[in-house]
């Protein structure tokens, strides 16, 4: 089995600041992997580099959706093309299209994988209409799976916080990703909402076969969800392994809690 996402020696400089320093990372099919690290460690920058918002200064990003060894380098692709190849992401802050309905938000995601062009949209041949109906149906199914079906025609901005967060995941799912990148999905959630999120992410992996890479500060969620964890600090990888490995890794503990003062008794 080949990894579906492979990042090799990635470096990202902003002027004199090295935000990501020679980072390696891979994700296998069906894995849930977490990327953790103190604030400002370069985690979101890493997401931006993979999804085409930034072009890494050096290094390679390869994808291989089927895991059959046919790798494609996606470093220089624009975000919309990266999305079309099956990488979807959410942001730390909520970035829904607030003045659109819940259904429309999801439909926008679906459009990424449909083909009707501008002329088709204007002249609306039968195939365009059939496609539109299909998209509505597909969007509704996704909302049902994520438990948002009752909000279909609400404006996104009127949803409760936890539901808005889940809608972001639903919208990302609509682009039919093989890998979902979640940037602090549990930020601002109460414990009950976090539990539901935990279940939702597991369900997406188990039922939909989507691999997941998440950035998260809620350690309880990270430890319970992820199979492997990468720890970064100052753009460098300082640890990787199973949750147990990470918990007992002295370098990681140091980065998180600061230098331990030798107690001299």
């Amino acid at each position, binding site marked *: 089995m080949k990894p579906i996402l492979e990042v090799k020696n990635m470096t990202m400089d902003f002027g004199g600041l090295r935000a990501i320093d020679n980072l390696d990372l891979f994700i296998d099919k069906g894995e849930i992997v977490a990327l953790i690290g103190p604030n400002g460690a370069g985690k979101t920058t890493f997401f931006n580099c993979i999804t085409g918002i930034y072009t890494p200064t050096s290094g390679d990003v390869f994808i291989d959706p089927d895991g059959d060894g046919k790798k494609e380098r996606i470093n220089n692709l624009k975000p*919309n093309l990266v999305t079309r190849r099956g990488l979807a992401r959410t942001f730390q802050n909520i970035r829904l299209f607030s003045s659109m309905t819940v259904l429309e938000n999801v439909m926008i995601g679906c459009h990424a994988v449909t083909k009707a062009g501008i002329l088709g*949209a*204007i002249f609306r041949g039968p195939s365009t209409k059939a496609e539109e109906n299909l998209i509505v149906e597909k969007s509704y199914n996704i909302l049902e799976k994520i438990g948002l079906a009752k909000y279909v025609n609400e404006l996104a901005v009127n949803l409760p916080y936890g539901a808005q967060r889940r809608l972001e995941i639903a919208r990302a799912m609509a682009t039919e990703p093989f890998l979902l990148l979640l940037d602090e999905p549990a930020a601002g959630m109460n414990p009950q909402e976090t539990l539901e999120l935990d279940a939702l992410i597991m369900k997406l992996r188990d039922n939909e076969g989507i691999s997941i890479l998440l950035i998260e500060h809620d350690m309880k969620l990270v430890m319970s969800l992820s199979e492997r964890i990468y720890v970064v600090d100052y753009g460098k990888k300082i640890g990787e392994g199973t949750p147990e490995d990470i918990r007992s890794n002295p370098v990681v503990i140091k980065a998180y809690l600061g230098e331990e003062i030798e107690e001299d008794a």
Partner: protein
Amino acid sequence: MDFHITYMADDSHNRRDESRFKNIYLLRLSYKTGSRTGLNMDLEYFSQLFFGGLTRGSIYALIALGYTMVYGIIELINFAHGEIYMIGAFTALIVSSVLTLFGMPVLAVVVLAGMAAVVYSCSYGYTMEKIAYKPLRNAPRLSALISAIGMSLFLQNYVLLAQTSDFLPFPSLIPDFEFWEPYAHILTSPELVILITTVVVMILLTFLIKFTKIGKAMRATSQDKMMASLLGINVDRVISVTFVVGSATAAIGGILIASHIGQINFYMGFIAGIKAFVAAVLGGIGSIPGAVLGSLVLGWTESFFTGYISSDYEDVFAFLFLVLILIFRPSGILGRSQAQKV
């Protein structure tokens, strides 16, 4: 604008109408002609002003849509938009003259000239965006604004050199027909055609934006470009389409007004563009219903002030009104004051 056409028209006739042209007059000169309908004279006069303002407002709206749509998506005031409208009128004139020369029936001339004008204007709008704005997408906003002003001057002077600085007579493409007698002088048939065309364009545009895939993509892009592109939307293409659609409505406005006034000139886009821009700001720039409402309000303001007070101060009233609205509602009539995203 590849070939130059010489007109035989009497030049003094053109000069006479210059002042009329300057303010893109849509008001008829035959006000207070005396009641022919048995209606109260005052009411009749009011109705004339009302429909005159409505017609004028619809033309503003066709142009203002382009300003507001482009602003809604890339937050740029496209100052060259008025020039697109002027180019639409010129194209229609050239094509209709040639077709008439070949003895085509009037209806065919109108349809073909209209289509040619729209297509030609759209290609200008598309190219303009690619040349003048796309390279400046991530530059400071002031750079794009200056680029827009440069584009406007460039297009004006290009048409001036390629065509002429004279006023050119424009054939009346809108036929005068009988309807609604004896009230026809309250709402004339060309005014009716302008109103109907505007309403049809608005309905089509609303449909495009509300219900089609590209419309959803446009709305998504205007709210959050990065998120839209991460959902697979090709933002560059959405921006191009916005320019093309805005150019199409401007070209339609250009043909209607040129045909109604009866003459055109390379400078016609400037005043019309400024007025439409005012209308878009008045309604709340970035909002499509706002642009339409702002245009109608501006059209009526001008019409009533001109009719009841003085036609000399028409522009003064229009801009005074803008200042007042902006003092009390800085974001325009329908604009929402937006909290800055952190």
